[in-house]
Each structure stands twice: as C-alpha cells, then as structure tokens.
C-alpha cells in the first residue's frame, strides 16, 4: 500500500470514529460547548506535539499563511455547517449538500496546483462524493 494512501485511511478511520464520539458529546451538551472542548483538545494535542516532536520553525511566508488559514477555514466551515442546520435546513439535505466539498478541492487542485487525475481516479472522485452523500442521507435521517 502506498504511504499516502495508508495515512489517508488512518485519517478516514479516526474521523469516522469521531463521528460517533461527537454524537455522544452533542447528546449531552450543546454543539457550541462541544466545539469549544473539541478546540481545547486541539490545543492540548499541539502542546504534546511541541514537547515530543522536534519542530522546524524555519517556514516560508506562503506556507505559514496557508497552514494557519487551514485551521481557520476548517473551523469556520464547522461553524457555518451548524448555522445551516440552525437556520432551518433539514439535516438530511444540509449534510448531503456539504458532502460535496471535495468536488471544490478537486477543482481548485486541478486549476491552481495543476494536478492531473487519470480517468479511473476522476471516476473514483465522483464515486467517492456520491458515496459520501448516500452515507450522509440515511445517517442524518436516523439522527
């Protein structure tokens, strides 16, 4: 198995498990409080990383901005998805709709980074998005 794929599967599994633990959290406390403690965990993890890992602080401006923007974009995305649900959007529709986000990543990566996909990978990207939508529809309908 290629290394990048192995790490992708690890991310997929951990994020998948967090889908269950998040549900356990929001069954007991509000989504805001849950998000806040989610962030505290990120801070704690960062502290551990700083203590355990030898970090290279020599960073380029573009890299620094992109990495910080990553946290802001992902966090804001979580917040706007809560807002979509609070603004009257049905969970089954909102969650399915936001599952389309990799489509934008693919588009931007092709246009801006000049990435090229094989025919099979292109088919795979669309199949993945379809799969994510199908998985979300029923999950949210049950919730």
């Amino acid at each position, binding site marked *: 198995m290629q290394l*990048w*794929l192995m790490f992708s*599967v690890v991310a997929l599994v*951990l*994020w998948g498990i*967090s*889908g269950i633990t*998040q549900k*356990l959290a929001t*069954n*007991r406390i509000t989504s*805001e*409080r*849950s998000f*806040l*403690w*989610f*962030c505290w*965990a*990120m*801070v704690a*993890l*960062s502290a551990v*990383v*700083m203590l355990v*890992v030898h*970090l290279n602080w020599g*960073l380029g401006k*573009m890299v620094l901005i992109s*990495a910080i923007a*990553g*946290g*802001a*974009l*992902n966090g804001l*995305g979580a*917040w*706007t998805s809560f807002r*979509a*649900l609070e*603004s009257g959007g049905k969970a089954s529709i909102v969650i399915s709709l936001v*599952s389309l*986000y*990799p489509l*934008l990543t*693919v588009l931007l*990566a092709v246009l*801006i980074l000049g*990435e090229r*996909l094989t025919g*099979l*990978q292109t*088919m*795979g*990207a669309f*199949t*993945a998005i379809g*799969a*994510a939508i199908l998985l979300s529809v*029923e999950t949210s309908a049950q919730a």
Partner: protein
Amino acid sequence: MHRRRIPKWLLWSLLTIALWGTWGLVSKIASTGVDAYMNQLLYTAGLAPLMVFVAITVHREQGKVIANRNSGIFWAFFTGILGGVGNIAFFQALVKGGKASVVAPVTALFPMVTVLLALMFLKEKLGRTQWLGLALAFAAIYMLSA
C-alpha cells in the same frame, strides 16, 4: 415585482462547501514546506480566533444546569483528540505525495467508518441507501488509489 430570496440555510451550506473545499487546497500548499506536526500546530493557531468567539457564546450560558455535562465534555474532548490525530494523518498523506484532488475525496469517505461502527456497536440498522453508499465508498477508494 416579488423577489425570491435564497434561504439562509442554503447560503450557510454553500459557504461551508467553499471553506472546507479550500481547506484541502491550502493544506496541500502548506504541506510543500512544513511537516504534518507543524501543520497541526499552525492549524490550531488558525482555529484560535474562532475558539475565542465560541468561548464567549458558551460563557453566556454558563448559569444553565446541564445534566451529563462532564461526560459530554469528555466525549467532546476525545472527539478533538481523534480529529487532531486524524488531521496529522491527513497532512502526512499530503506530505508523502498524495494529491489534494485524491486525498480529499478519500478522507471525505469517513462517514463509512461511522456507519460501520454504528452498525457494530450501536446496533443501528442500515438502509439500502447506506449499503449502496458503503459499496460505492470501497469502489471509490480502489479507483482513487489506482
């Protein structure tokens, strides 16, 4: 003339797509000059302003009595640890040569794990749509890794 207004939930949903979709791109750009651990550290720095904003909101409801508060906090914190370690793995995938256009769709399949765990541990039943989603998810991983 009567003007049709776009529903707020749709605007928030589209904004979510824009934010998360762009996250994949900036993560790939960052991974060209930073390792996965440093990326996670900077990611947390980017999260900080939103954290302050949410903390103010949460502080306002401090007086309310919430049953099961401690267990809720535990699960939320644990979710953050899983999410953060998952982020490091995601950043590693990009550092190790994974294309953003492939890694993003693969990792976006994480609901398949949630569904499988709900089936195994929470004894939830899967509908036809979910079974089809699971089958498509496995097929997609195979095609994307080819």
